């Protein structure tokens, strides 16, 4: 796992919202793993879809891309690709550092 920090610049007006937002995404990662273990691809797709929809708005563009990847992979029931993107998202969340500017 890479420890390289990922710097994301976010609107300072969103500062209060960011900790809760990132916490929710970490919960999403946990939930994604649970649903994937059950092979519940519809739930996986739905979570991926939500991540895609909300990430970019807060300034986390890569998060939205990973959400979209998970959504597409879930539609194809591609567990391997889903897991790969969940791991990438997990890593991203652990390494992301927010700069308010």
């Amino acid at each position, binding site marked *: 796992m890479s420890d390289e920090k990922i710097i994301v610049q976010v609107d300072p007006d969103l500062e209060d919202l960011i900790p809760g937002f990132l916490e929710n995404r970490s919960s999403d990662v946990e939930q994604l793993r649970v649903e994937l273990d059950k092979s519940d691809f519809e739930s996986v797709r739905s979570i991926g879809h939500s991540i895609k929809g*909300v990430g970019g*708005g807060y300034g986390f563009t890569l998060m939205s891309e990973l959400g979209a990847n998970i959504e597409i992979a879930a539609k194809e029931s591609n567990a391997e690709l889903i897991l790969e993107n969940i791991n990438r998202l997990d890593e991203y969340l652990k390494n992301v550092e927010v700069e308010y500017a």
Partner: protein
Amino acid sequence: MTTNKSESKVKVLIVDDDNDVLNLLENWLTKENYSVKRAESGTEALNLVGIYAPDLVITDLYMEGMDGMTLLTELHNDNPLLPVIMLSGQAQIPDAIKAMHLGTSAFLTKPINQNEFLETVKKVSPNIDKSILNEFSKSIIYKSKAMSDIIEMASLVADNDVSVFISGSTGTGKEVIAKAIHEASSRRDKRFIAINCGAIPEQLLESELFGHEKGAFTGANLKHEGLFQAANGGTIFLDEVGDMPLALQVKLLRVLQDFEVRPVGSTKTYPIDVRLISATHKNLENAVEKGEFREDLYYRLKVVPLDIPNLTDRQDDIPALVEHFLNAFSKSNAQDKKKFSPDAMKYLCSMPWPGNVRQLINVVDLCATLSKTKNIPLSLVKKAVHDDPVHMQTLKEAKQAFEKGYLLSVLRITHGHVANAAKIAGRNRTEFYKLLNQYDIEPARFRDKKNTEKETS
């Protein structure tokens, strides 16, 4: 970006089952000075709409339970004018097309771009200048949804020159709305002239509206400008237009088509720039079917229809109206303000009010006059309502009202020349003077051209 011209904010209801989306949108909108309420489901949104009365709804398409399309349909069942922005995580063209067909104002895909989002919100926000709404609230007391919808529509059209057609039962306040539209328009510095088409005989009405040349008919010793020319640059309100004789309807139609008037007895036409608002308590569609009202004129007049609700359909407004009339009574009579006891107010709110707001004013005034105590008791209200069941004019009152209107019209046309006016009226001068005295009408003031405004109602 500034969104509001006045302190009042555009009210936005945001609907999404994802709290992080709601947080984000609320943050963006609040920063831009919108007032925001949030709902986590379509059902919650529908409950909130009645209470919050948003100017705009922004909803996600895919939600647990009621989805965005269903919400849109439900919202528009109740208020087809309410702008709705649909958000979707999928840029699926069929969804966008369906949403547009259902009347959505804009369709945005997630992830949402802040600038695009705010530009869209600005674009689809109803173009209600809150200062216009404030103008309406100066003269119209309302908080009911029925009346709010009417005022919203009136606000939207106030500053356009489209013809507004106001329908509603007697006493609902059609002229008040017409005047408020004029006051909220850019024509407010020019004149608002109201005329009751049903109160004046045909020949006089023609002359009143379009003017006449000197010698156009017996007694027409002076040229008369007519109300359309007098209202130039302003607004003319034709009340009871359904009572206008067919021959005059043709002439009115021509005025609306050509924007010019030709006075009686003249070969010359005069350009006019007048905003027309008309009203009637009659069912004009029936009148058109019976051939009593021209269909082409009907459609010319009814570009924007406003149907004023009966007082019973806006019961929520009754306490505020009562308060307003009590204040007005106390001011005009220099008395301490009285108030209705709670059971009396409850009774007022439950009355059928066939005479609408006008009847309510009468009852409030009567109660305020007769009550010996500061608190007006239920017994007095019951008596007042009973004594004034519909406040229909008696035949004598109606005749007197007509006679007074007629005398005013004749004097206006003859510019206060009593001999000519008497000739038109078919009376000798002595009899005519007697009639003028009876109604306290001073012919001299009709000799002043500036003082020819509405006196027919």
